[in-house]
């Protein structure tokens, strides 16, 4: 008998404990959700500089620069010769990958074309063949005429051409991005697709066979 009230006394606080526990649980669950939300918010803010760092190569465009290719006399009129320079956008540790090769075609005393060695198909280095007056690509067999226009094979267009500036004795080109179909900004403009371009070749052919 004496234990009865004790029990009820014990039970009574238990009930209130239960109520308190439920309230505590609900409060803790709320605080947990709140803290998760705060973590998400901080994470989102933190992500901005992290993603910005990752996108650095896209957001910071290197404009490139004019490069001295040397004395014009090194490129005789009527010939196409390989020249090389160090990229103006070189960075620490680039080593020999910062070297760039290009084909210089001296058309006339004051007329020069400078082509990227990178094939307009997939970027392999094209080689000049003086005898057949063609640039040939070793990877997939793209071929270009002496003026850089597409001759045959998988390329969709002619060779990429650098912008050229001539002074009295020196040849300058504007270089920057590695030339691809989308990053030819530092190169001279050329029509993108010239697959069906044969008119000029035909015209020349008639002249030669006449």
């Amino acid at each position, binding site marked *: 008998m004496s234990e009865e009230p004790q029990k009820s006394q014990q039970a009574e606080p238990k009930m209130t404990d239960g109520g308190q526990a439920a309230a505590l649980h609900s409060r803790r669950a709320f605080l947990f959700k709140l803290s998760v939300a705060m973590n998400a918010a901080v994470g989102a803010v933190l992500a901005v500089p992290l993603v910005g760092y990752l996108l650095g*190569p*896209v957001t910071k*465009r*290197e404009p490139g620069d004019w490069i001295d290719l040397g004395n014009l006399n090194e490129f005789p009129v009527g010939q196409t010769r*390989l020249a090389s320079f160090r*990229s103006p*956008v*070189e*960075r*620490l*540790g*680039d*080593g*020999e*990958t*910062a*070297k*760039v*090769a290009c084909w210089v075609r001296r058309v006339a005393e004051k007329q020069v074309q400078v082509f990227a*060695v*990178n094939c307009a*198909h*997939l*970027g*392999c*280095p*094209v*080689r000049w*063949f003086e*005898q*057949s007056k*063609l640039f*040939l690509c*070793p*990877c*997939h*067999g793209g071929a270009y*005429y*002496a003026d850089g226009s597409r*001759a*045959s*094979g*998988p*390329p*969709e267009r002619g060779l990429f051409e650098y912008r050229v500036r001539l002074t009295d004795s020196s040849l300058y080109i504007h270089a920057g*991005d*590695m030339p*691809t*179909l*989308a*990053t030819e*900004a530092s190169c001279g403009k050329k029509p993108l697709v010239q*697959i069906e371009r*044969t008119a000029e*070749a*035909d015209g*020349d*052919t008639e002249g*030669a*066979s006449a």
Partner: protein
Amino acid sequence: MMGPNSEKRKGLLGWLDHRLGLYKPMKDAAEHPTPANNASWFYVFGSAATVLLMLQVVTGILLGLIYSPTASNAWGSLQLLNHSIPLGWYIRALHGWGSNFMVAIVLIHLVQVFLFGSYKYPRELTWMVGVVLLLLTLGMAFTGQVLRFDQDAYWGLGIGASIMSRVPWIGGSLVHLLLGGPIIGEATLTRFFDLHVFIIPGILLGGVAVHIWMTLRHGVSEWPMPGRIVSKETYEREYHELTEKTGIPFVPDAAWKDAVFAVAIVLAVMACAFYFGPIGPSGPPDPTIIQTAPKPDAPFLWLFSLLSLLPPELETPFILIAPVLAIGAMLLLPVVAAEGERHWARRPIAVLSVSVIAVVFGLLTHYGSTTPWSPVMDAWSSDPIPVAYLHDRTPLELRGAVVLQYKQCRDCHALGGVGGKRGPALDTIATRMTEDQIIRQVLQGGGNMPAYGNSLNPSETKALVKFLLTLRGENQPRAVDASRDVGVKPPVNPRPHK
């Protein structure tokens, strides 16, 4: 059973396990019952791939002790490994050949699972994760090839950038993201180092854990039987019954075959590494050395072929859309075909698909290693015209032979089986083309041949064509223009005459 008293029973190990609590779950996982009919030599490829992955991790960490991930030093550090560091060559060889073996074994594993229909319910997600693991393995192979940072790696990156540049609108940004800057250089190598050493291996190891977890959870698929249909309602009950009836503990009753195969495959890697040595590096990554014919490693030769054989106007859509479709199809396969027959004898389309894909990839890889589309850059100066083709020729025709050689025609056209294979062989050209047709083709080009009107003068053209007209087998008639006779003189009788 694994109560506190196990500590007394097992000494130090017991003490450890009381704290770790891993002994029993691992023992249960290893000894889980598996249907007796799948303890087969066909079921060993998954574990072999895992063993090779472990080999790659260990050898990769060892290479990391010496390798220098900078554009200026990477190539040199590989030379150091090959020639100066004791056994450096062998660790490089193990890593390189381990990579080739891993790609091959993962592919074989995939084909086996496909042909056995093991991707069906309830193992769909195991297959999907497996597809991702295959892509990650190929990603490791590609990024590893970049870390070799030789000529092939340099120009391979150029090819990757050129492919990226074909994506509409964001192509330029993708190129810069891939290269880490405006040109291939230090930033390019370090991001591929990050991918190869941290990012892809992390995902790969996590993926393998999930893949194995699901394999344990659903059990290894039983040997397929013709007529035993997978149905979502009954499969799990049937598999459970089969396991209860015929089950054997995976370790050791089934796993001994995995273990034997693992030994064989590791020995094979060791032997290849020993006999063939390390793979590369080829020439230094100096972009001004253009006397190079870059080629990707074996797992990507098919892609190299595809990029040169596609018609130009199809290329960009194909390389941007086809991978999405192919990967999507592989991922969705188990969703579309979750139920039905598993046995290959009842799945002719599956068998046909595998056969066709295998033949296509095999042929593309073969062509990738022989590159018949590439001009042979030195054929004109190194491969003489067969002497038989010079006998009994007039001086003009002989002059034509000189023109043919000097104008580099041989770079693309073979004579006597030697020379380029980009254009047709010229041994019997006079039986296929008339004089007029040859002149037109040489001067104007067409059909994938450049026009030579600019580089041949009229006398060279005349000599060249006269020589080409002598190229026909004995007793083979010259090609004739059938329409010419018709146009010049009206036929006497209504039937066309020869």
